[in-house]
């Protein structure tokens, strides 16, 4: 008979939507049922959703935990109730997840960092390049720090962070990035840790007329960001896309196997996908993939 699996995301953005679609596709063919929900980035809502699904008697929960530490309590309850727990995107401490499908946040930062190294070396010409960062620390501190630190770990020898701010919604990020450029006219590079931040940073540079003087490195893949990489304004240099469809599919696969009592690999890693201005073919291929996703 059909199994029921709950998929819990924590916000409504393109990445999460992609994961959901991946999950839907993975359950579409069978008579397994997918229950999806959104924790709105709130720990207490996450705990409530997990309680609700335990009460409903689901076989497995696939979740992207909000916090490695703080999400433990709720998920432990699920395990204690005999529910399979699979995490994706992020994971949780305490050996609770029976399988974990991740592209680590650090990897996401590292991906963009690697793409930036050569660029920064050249731009600095021996000197450290002044950069500013846009993060989402007051929303999700662990993920945010993972990405920013991953990025910095690659480029720390070549940069000097002169401004670090929070802004994750595009319209806020435009304002904040503009202000950062005003306060620090010597900034040459902006790094943004999520999609909204990246869009906002690019728009801020264009709005300030600093094309060719200030460059943006960002995070996440979307049609808009792909187009920005292909645009000849030379602002956005590289982003690191995740593969949400893959993540969703693998999470469901692992959950089904675990329900059936099969063995699965505990740490399933989904590679991240660096997209760079210097590789337009790669960007175009990614765009094609996206089209398939939305149809």
């Amino acid at each position, binding site marked *: 008979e059909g199994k029921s699996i709950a998929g819990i*995301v924590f916000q*409504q953005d393109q990445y999460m939507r992609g994961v959901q679609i991946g999950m839907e596709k993975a359950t579409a063919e069978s008579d397994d*049922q*997918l*229950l*999806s*929900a*959104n924790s*709105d*980035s*709130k*720990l*207490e809502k*996450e*705990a*409530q*959703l997990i*309680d*609700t*699904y*335990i*009460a*409903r*008697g689901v076989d497995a929960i696939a979740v992207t935990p909000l*916090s490695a*530490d*703080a*999400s*433990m*309590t*709720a998920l432990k*309850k699920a395990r204690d109730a005999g529910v399979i727990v699979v995490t994706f995107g992020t994971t949780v401490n305490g050996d609770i997840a029976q399988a974990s499908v991740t592209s680590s946040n650090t990897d996401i930062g590292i991906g963009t960092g690697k793409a930036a190294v050569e660029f920064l070396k050249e731009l600095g010409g021996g000197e450290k390049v002044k950069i500013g960062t846009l993060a989402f*620390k*007051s*929303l*999700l*501190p*662990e993920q945010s*720090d993972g990405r920013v630190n991953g990025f910095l770990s690659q480029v720390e020898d070549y940069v000097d962070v002169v401004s670090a701010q929070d802004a994750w919604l595009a319209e806020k990020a435009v304002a904040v990035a503009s202000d950062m450029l005003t306060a620090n006219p010597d900034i040459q590079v902006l790094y943004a840790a999520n999609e909204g931040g990246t869009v906002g940073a690019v728009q801020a540079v264009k709005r300030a007329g600093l094309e060719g003087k200030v460059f943006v490195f960002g995070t996440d893949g979307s049609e808009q960001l792909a187009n920005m990489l292909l645009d000849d304004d030379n602002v956005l240099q590289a982003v690191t896309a995740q593969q949400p469809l893959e993540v969703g599919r693998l999470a469901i696969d692992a959950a089904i196997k675990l329900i059936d009592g099969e063995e699965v690999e505990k740490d399933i890693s989904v590679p991240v996908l660096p997209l760079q201005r210097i590789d337009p073919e790669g960007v175009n291929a990614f765009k094609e993939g996206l089209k398939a996703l939305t149809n």
Partner: protein
Amino acid sequence: MTTTTEHVERKENFAIGILRNYPMEIILGALIVFLIFMAPGFASTHNLLNVLRTVSMLGIIAFGMTAVIISGEIDLSVGAGVALAGCIVAWFAGAIGGWGGVAVGFAVAVSVGFSVGFLTGQFRRWFDVPTFITTLALFAALRGVANLITGGFPLTNFPSGFDFLGGGYLFGIPFPVYVFAFTFVAMHFIMNNTSFGRAVYAVGGNLEAARLSGINVWLVKSMTLAITGVLTAISGTLIASQIGSGTGTTATGMELDVIAAVIIGGTSLFGGKGRIWGTLIGVLFLGCISNGMTLMNVSEYWQYVVRGGIILGAVLLNQVLERVR
């Protein structure tokens, strides 16, 4: 024949009477019946207890908020207050350690809640600053302080067994439900049967008349805010226990849910009118909607639409039923 007709008429009047006097109760009842049949797992004891546990956190604060709104004020800072209280308790649990730390933390959180609430009322008195503004400022500031305490990362150094408060069961019923029930009874009693409670209605209904009657109107307003501050600290501690950590991002947007529950329960935003009982109904109503939609697997985008539609529909129906005469 005559008697039969009379009997029918009486019955009709009785039905109309119920409709008019308990519209919101009926709407909630209808929602529950609907969910029993349509939402898989809704009627299980386990699920119902979960719903109760979930609404407890919100409801504890909502009872205080009811008093605040009846007194003619508002408190937008409760979500931030919950986060702050959780962080304070967690910080002391880490710094002092064990249950002693929790106890000190809880005492500090409650004192902070009380003082901040009371001062908000006094601000209104001394400087005529609307509580809307003061608590809007606190809305930002308290969360900032919470984050400064934690440094941005969840604090999880609680003693073992701490999770009982938010997650444990006592005689088969979740612990927070007891706190919720106690708060309901206490606030219901206070509002209906004490001079203070009646003064709250008077102050919200006609400030000048209350003042001319010798009521210390600012003390009354400040006290409703202080009570809400204390209840916020209690709820914040329970939530910290439930999620096993104190973080600055807890309970984002909760103020709107709390106020929504109060208003759905029939309290007027303009003060003077409202009932603790109504808020109980409002809280349960919101809890059932959220739970039901998750159980019925309503897609998350539709959830927003459905939630909006149900709230609007319920309040509308409530008003229409009240008019049946």
